[in-house]
């Protein structure tokens, strides 16, 4: 049998394909993105797309389910906050074709603004939750998820974490089984969530959850590995593998794959077989709280803690007080935070903002969050997708109310504009906001690794698409002065900012230059060099925060391996000591 090393995300994609899924919609977000990057390889037999945001993706997938096909949506943990609205009501209505929602959580916040534990969504929405622990389970459990969705008439939450999504392990593939399309008939009673219908759907959902709990007691998704009787561990997801490595060889395990609703009879019978019961889970005590509430004593969070990722060594330390053999080598590494790439078009914009200490700049989620890092340090806030505009609006209103004259900017990227910036832009016009919205348009969804969006001109399946024009959208909202500027020209960038601030009519700025990493565009790449005779070591060029520049022996030095010749550093040099080599 052919064995493949697949990431959890690749295996989820494969599992959905094998389950006969037909319609898939998602918005990219680390660590979930690769699920959908893999799907186009199956485009002959399924439809897949990037939606403008997670709520739209979830509604598209749910609509497809109502129409009778198996459907998929996927998002990072915070994406489920955006998508929560349809999820809760889809739970009441139920499904026609199987409907699976993938949520990829990010403990330790490798690439996220918080480490919320999305298992609580399954409880709150009253939907079954499946948690795979490795790539083979990602594939196999996906198929099981569709069966459960259809059998119990509910959406299924398929929850991974970074280490499940991005770890690779060996997988044996199966074949795609075409799923019989359920005939579509109007069913107003089921799918129109009017108060009267919802009133009847709620008890149906409660019954489903009861049946699911009984199902979980015997389902192969949950399994006992009985060894010794001294210690028993209940675990799920990646924490199961950590615990397997950390606990003694003779430990018995109850490994759960269906974690909402918890199979309490199975848990009770496992607990009775061991002297001491541990519940090992990453982040919150989601299982532990319920197990304790059922009157089953266990040890867990008081030792394990509820923050950040675990690993086998941390469990050894916290449970068995075994510290790692660590040598003090006497040298310490200094921090190496991520930074805007050399040649990043965001640099010119943030450099301009950094020259005005009186500006208040509300930022957003994307590569441009790095505009808040030193030495640019040009952001006041970053909250969530879309808040770049709307939080800036609130700040400007607060300043107005209290008589403070502050110049407020709201900043977000092109993909974020389509995601949830458009509503903020409407808010600014409608409620007469005194701020400048800025769209950093680099033609791509950058931080997640270059996914297309409604402005990029292509679809996930690689087809040419209508490219939505941000300037036309803003103009139609009522921004009568939309200024488009190339951030690589610092003079023009500064002029655009001043023109917007001085505008008599509502103004917005589109900072436009494609991301240098976009492969389908031919970029004008060269190198900048320092004339050491002219350089006075004033460090002005360091202020642009480019990883390619550093000062050595009182002279600026540009790493020729990294430099792409964007000239932003050259434009700030007071002695014209930096020049671009022409190709």
């Amino acid at each position, binding site marked *: 049998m052919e064995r493949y090393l697949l990431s959890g995300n690749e295996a989820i994609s494969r599992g959905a394909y094998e389950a006969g899924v037909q319609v898939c919609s998602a918005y990219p977000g680390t660590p979930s993105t690769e699920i959908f990057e893999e799907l186009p390889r199956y485009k002959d037999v399924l439809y897949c797309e990037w939606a403008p945001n997670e709520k739209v993706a979830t509604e598209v997938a749910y609509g497809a389910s109502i129409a009778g096909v198996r459907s998929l949506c996927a998002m990072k943990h915070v994406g489920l906050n955006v998508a929560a609205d349809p999820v809760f009501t889809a739970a009441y209505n139920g499904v026609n074709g199987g409907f699976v929602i993938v949520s990829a959580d990010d403990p330790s916040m490798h690439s996220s603004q918080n480490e919320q534990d999305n298992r609580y969504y399954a409880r709150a929405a009253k939907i079954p939750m499946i948690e795979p622990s490795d790539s083979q389970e990602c594939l196999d459990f996906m198929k099981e998820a569709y069966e459960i969705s259809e059998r119990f008439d509910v959406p299924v939450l398929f929850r991974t974490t970074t280490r499940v999504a*991005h770890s690779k*392990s060996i997988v044996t593939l199966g074949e795609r089984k075409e799923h019989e399309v359920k005939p579509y008939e109007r069913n107003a009673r089921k799918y129109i969530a009017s108060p009267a219908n919802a009133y009847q759907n709620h008890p149906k959902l409660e019954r489903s959850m009861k049946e699911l709990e009984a199902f979980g007691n015997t389902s192969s998704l949950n399994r006992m590995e009985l060894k010794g009787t001294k210690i028993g561990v209940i675990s799920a997801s990646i924490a199961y593998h950590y615990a397997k490595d950390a606990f003694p060889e003779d430990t018995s395990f109850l490994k759960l794959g269906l974690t909402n609703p918890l199979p309490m009879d199975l848990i009770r019978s496992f607990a009775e077989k061991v002297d001491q019961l541990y519940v090992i889970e990453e982040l919150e005590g989601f299982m532990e709280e319920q197990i304790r509430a059922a009157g089953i004593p266990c040890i867990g969070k008081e030792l394990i803690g509820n923050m950040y990722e675990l690993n086998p060594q941390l469990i050894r330390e916290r449970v068995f007080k075994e510290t*790692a053999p660590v040598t003090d080598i006497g*040298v310490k590494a200094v*921090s*190496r935070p*991520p*930074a805007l790439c050399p040649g990043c078009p965001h640099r010119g914009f943030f450099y301009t903002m950094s020259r005005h200490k009186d500006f208040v700049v509300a930022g957003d989620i994307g*590569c441009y969050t790095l505009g808040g890092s030193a030495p640019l340090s040009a952001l006041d806030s970053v909250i969530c997708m879309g808040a770049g505009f709307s939080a800036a609006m609130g700040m400007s209103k607060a300043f107005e109310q209290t008589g403070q004259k502050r110049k407020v900017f709201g900043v977000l990227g092109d993909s974020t504009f389509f995601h949830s910036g458009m509503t903020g832009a409407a808010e600014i016009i409608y409620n007469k906001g005194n701020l400048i919205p800025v769209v950093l348009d680099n033609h791509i969804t950058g931080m997640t690794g270059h996914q297309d969006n409604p402005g990029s001109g292509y679809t996930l399946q690689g087809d040419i698409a209508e490219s939505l024009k941000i300037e036309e959208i803003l103009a139609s909202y009522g921004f009568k002065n939309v200024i488009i500027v190339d951030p690589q020209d610092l003079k023009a960038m500064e002029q655009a900012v001043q023109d917007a601030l001085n505008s008599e009519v509502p103004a917005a700025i589109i900072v436009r230059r494609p991301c240098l990493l976009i492969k389908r565009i031919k970029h004008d790449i060269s190198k900048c060099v320092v004339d050491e005779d002219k350089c006075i070591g004033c460090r002005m060029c360091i202020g642009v925060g480019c990883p390619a520049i550093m000062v050595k022996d009182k002279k600026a030095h540009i790493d020729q391996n990294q430099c792409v010749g964007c000239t932003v550093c050259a434009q700030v040099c007071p002695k014209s000591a930096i020049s671009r080599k022409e190709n």
Partner: protein
Amino acid sequence: MSNVRSMLLVGVGGQGAILTAKVLVAGLMEAGYDVKMSEVHGMSQRGGSVSTQVHWGEKVNSPVIGKGAADLIVAFEKMEAVRYADYLKPDGIVVVNDYEIASSSIAAGLCEYPEGCLEAMQKNYKCYVVKAAEIAESLGNTRCMNIVLFGSLVKALGMDTMVDWEDVISRTVPEKFRELNLNAYRAGLSAVAS
């Protein structure tokens, strides 16, 4: 799991550690091992510190390890060797690229690049220092630095005859870079004295 061996590949986003791990894993699978690896994507790839973990053995549970548990660290940049040194077993092996990349905090003048990274690693661990950047440059393309280091790590772990690595590399890297990478592999092997 005592029969599981663990390796960390550490460096700076964009240095090509993921391709190195890919070649290694392809060979380990060919040799019949159970393999797990773990990468982190997203924000840290933008010039930040990155690490990829590879574990192999008869049966691997966890795709990640904590401190004091790695058999080998391959550092694509010398300060990154220092950063992750805590992850090594006391008798762990280090292959370190004699190559320096300033971090954005150093470039911004907020701190200095630490002195004595290589010496500290050599003093405390069995350490192979490889001038992979120089070697790669002499082969005509600095980007094959990752495969130079691959050759060195294979030699350092005594795995150079485990499978036909040249065949594995040929299958894994793009056709037009095949010769370059095979040369890089051979140069990496000989950079580590047996």
